């Protein structure tokens, strides 16, 4: 692989051991994937934050790296942690787990990474422009960044994204190249989509396309143009049932005009109402949730507003978490939404979510979700039952 003189200096240790090791990881990844060289990146988003996933060894690695003086050189944000970093005690997160979690986040903070722990960096100001190269690792954010923003990233692992953030570069292969962004499957959706349908659609198409690139055409006349919240739900589901890093949607995503000519000879998948309903049914493993968890991916201010309007002056009969980032929560606090939700008995939880939090140790049995991604992971990662439905149907109001 070709390295510039500057990159050679990084590789040979002139900038210290942290940069040297990071560059060595990037070169090895580039060699494995056949990259011709490096591209400079403008943004990083780093996974491997929850103590539940990286454990003591992850903590040790990060503390070593921070101790060597590693610093990121591009705007970088973190993936969700395993606890709400501020309200962990009130919400019942285990103290020992939290102690380790706070140390992990502190190691990242020392490296200059913003400790906004969120799977929706694009809602907190980490918004790279069309055509820019980035290194993101949260799978749903990768899908959103590539598809909706038109930035370019592979599905990075945690150490790969961190190395890229430290060197300001990533190997040039895959989704960084024009030829890596060509669609593989045409998906014609014949029914109009609402609410949790977007997740169900993503889940069934992700299974069909695997790690390929779907091109969506929404052909129903009643169909409204999907917006941020719908596209984030669709992308998250595509990336969890398959390994989708990029989708195109006609008249919606920025690269769909370039992608369209390639759809002429593609295999076509037609999705009907029956297909969507069938998938929705299959995603539930139980009924009657004791904890309803919304915000997978992390809720936007508009999504929190809808919940607040619904709960105003009412009392909840089951528990409710609306998961989001600290930035969106701050706006929700100021708008009065957090207070309304709390007065109804719910919580606006930040920094974490139902997948990476240790909810299996917090006394919950059945989790209600409106996210197909969460419905996919809660049984496998937490060993709990799930109910997948519209959030309005999941929350129970006291009579």
């Amino acid at each position: 692989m070709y390295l510039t003189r500057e990159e050679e200096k990084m590789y040979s240790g002139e900038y210290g051991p942290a940069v040297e090791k990071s560059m060595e990881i990037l070169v090895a990844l580039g060699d494995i994937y056949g990259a011709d060289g490096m591209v400079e990146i403008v943004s990083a988003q780093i996974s491997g934050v929850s103590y539940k996933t990286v454990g003591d060894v992850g903590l040790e690695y990060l503390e070593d790296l921070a101790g060597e003086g590693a610093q990121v050189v591009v705007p970088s944000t973190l993936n969700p942690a395993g606890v709400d970093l501020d309200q962990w005690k009130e919400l019942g997160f285990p103290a020992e787990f939290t102690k380790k979690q706070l140390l992990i986040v502190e190691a990242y903070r020392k490296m200059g990474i913003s400790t906004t722990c969120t799977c929706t960096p694009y809602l907190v100001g980490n918004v790279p422009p069309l055509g820019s190269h980035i290194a993101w690792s949260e799978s749903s954010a990768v899908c959103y960044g590539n598809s909706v923003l038109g930035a370019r990233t592979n599905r990075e692992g945690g150490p790969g994204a961190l190395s890229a953030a430290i060197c300001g570069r990533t190997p040039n292969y895959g989704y960084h190249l024009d030829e890596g962004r060509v669609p593989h499957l045409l998906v014609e959706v014949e029914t109009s989509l609402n609410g949790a349908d977007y997740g169900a659609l993503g889940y069934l198409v992700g299974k069909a396309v695997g790690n390929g690139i779907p091109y969506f055409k929404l052909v129903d006349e009643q169909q409204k143009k999907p917006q941020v919240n719908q596209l984030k739900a669709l992308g998250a589901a595509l990336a969890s049932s398959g390994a989708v890093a990029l989708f195109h949607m006609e008249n919606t995503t920025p690269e769909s005009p370039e992608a369209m000519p390639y759809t002429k000879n593609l295999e076509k998948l037609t999705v009907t109402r029956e297909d969507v309903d069938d998938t929705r049914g299959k995603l539930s493993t139980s009924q009657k949730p004791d904890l309803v968890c919304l915000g997978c991916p992390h809720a936007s201010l508009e999504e929190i507003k809808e919940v607040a309007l619904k709960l105003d002056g009412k009392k909840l009969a089951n528990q409710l978490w609306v998961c989001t980032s600290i930035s969106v929560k701050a706006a929700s606090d100021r708008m009065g939404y957090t207070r309304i939700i709390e007065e109804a008995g719910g919580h606006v939880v930040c920094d974490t979510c139902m997948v990476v939090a240790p909810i299996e140790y917090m006394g919950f049995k059945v989790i209600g979700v409106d996210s197909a991604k969460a419905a996919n992971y809660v049984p496998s990662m937490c060993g709990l039952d799930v109910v997948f439905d519209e959030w309005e149907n999941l929350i129970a109001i006291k009579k």
Partner: protein
Amino acid sequence: MTSHKIKCRKISRGHVTGSVIISQEPLSFLGGADPQTGNITDREHDLYQQNISGKILVIPSGKGSTVGSYVIFQMAKNKTAPLAIIALEAEPIIATGAIMASIPMVDQPEEDVLEILKEGDRVEVDADHGIIKLKK
């Protein structure tokens, strides 16, 4: 003593000599290896219950979760890690783990090392120059 040289590709730096342990199957370090002991714990794996600490591990490839990279690092901290890794084809998880743990690693050997090498053979892994030497 003669030595049989085989060209490889460097994945992770370093230069060591040791005896080999050979697997015919891809290995996942997460769930597949015990970082406390260096034992292989995957019941489906052909190295099940064998110890890879301080050996030159020869495998076709890696597989499994990306957290596997951290497991290799943990093994190095615990001094239970393999001495070096020779893979037919490196994949990101073990490659990243080997670099994090400062374990020499090479891949794409020009000859079929799974055939040529036998358990316990003395091998020199010179990752820096992309060469392995079989000492007989």
